[in-house]
């Protein structure tokens, strides 16, 4: 007589470790970029000093607070799912998405102002400035752009988690997806915590 054995193996600890390994690769990616920034800052000290004054510290600060707030809502969502409060978890994840979008809208306006002033890579105005300015704005657009891409990926991941909760695939006893999503979102937070002072404050 043949028996069919349905194996539903799950290893949440391994899943967490896997996510951390991915986070390590992301940390090295941004560390490399921070290193490039540091080297060029030393090389073109004057240009970086003047170019960083073109950035709006107020918008940067507001965006930092927004991102930290989204980290808080994400963290609380991680707790509420464990307590079986599905509706509250969904509400908190939705708030996190809204905060992420607000961050991107602020970034859009900030970038738009720079584009209006012709301060974007390859523009005639920027090329006419010093090499330090060119390097600063090149790195600014690349690094904040890469961070924004990571944030968009995070938003998609949260939307997938919301879908999982609504379909009953993520719940109080199976929340590894939400935990990993939370880790990724905090990585986005972590990277911004260094991007903000490097570009906006050190001048």
């Amino acid at each position: 007589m043949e028996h069919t054995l349905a194996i539903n193996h799950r290893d949440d600890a391994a899943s967490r470790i896997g996510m951390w390994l991915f986070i390590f690769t992301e940390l090295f990616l941004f560390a490399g970029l921070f290193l490039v920034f540091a080297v060029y800052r030393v090389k073109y000290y004057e240009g970086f000093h003047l170019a960083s004054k073109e950035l709006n510290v107020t918008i940067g600060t507001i965006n930092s607070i927004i991102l930290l707030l989204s980290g808080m809502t994400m963290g609380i969502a991680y707790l509420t799912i464990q307590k079986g409060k599905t509706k509250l978890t969904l509400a908190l994840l939705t708030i996190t998405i809204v905060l992420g979008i607000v961050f991107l809208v602020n970034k859009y306006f900030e970038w738009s102002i720079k584009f209006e002033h012709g301060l974007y890579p390859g523009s005639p105005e920027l090329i006419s400035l010093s090499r330090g300015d060119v390097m600063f704005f090149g790195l600014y657009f690349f690094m904040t752009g890469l961070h924004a891409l990571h944030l968009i990926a995070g938003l998609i991941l949260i939307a997938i988690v919301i879908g999982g909760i609504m379909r009953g695939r993520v719940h109080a006893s199976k929340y590894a997806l939400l935990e990993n999503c939370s880790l990724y979102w905090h990585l986005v937070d972590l990277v911004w915590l260094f991007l903000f002072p490097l570009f906006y404050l050190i001048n």
Partner: protein
Amino acid sequence: MEPTKKKIEGYGLYIITFTVLSFLTLLAVWLTHVRLASPIMIGFIMLIAACQAVIVLFYNMHLKFHDRILTIFVGLIFSLIILLIIVTMLDFVYR
């Protein structure tokens, strides 16, 4: 789900970390208005960023509540990154 080393119970932890992180962000912004020598100001601001990173790693990313081996791994990775930056900068400055 694998049991964590310590169970996180209240939402207060996240509210406190958000408050502390926001305060540190505002402190870093305020420091830019204080008349300090450039290297000292950069040192303070990067120290604040490092403190914020530790808070995010330990509390928001739950390193404090998971196995110590994970904390050791993260510590090693950050040590390697710091070493990479120091060695490259030394090479660049004194070449």
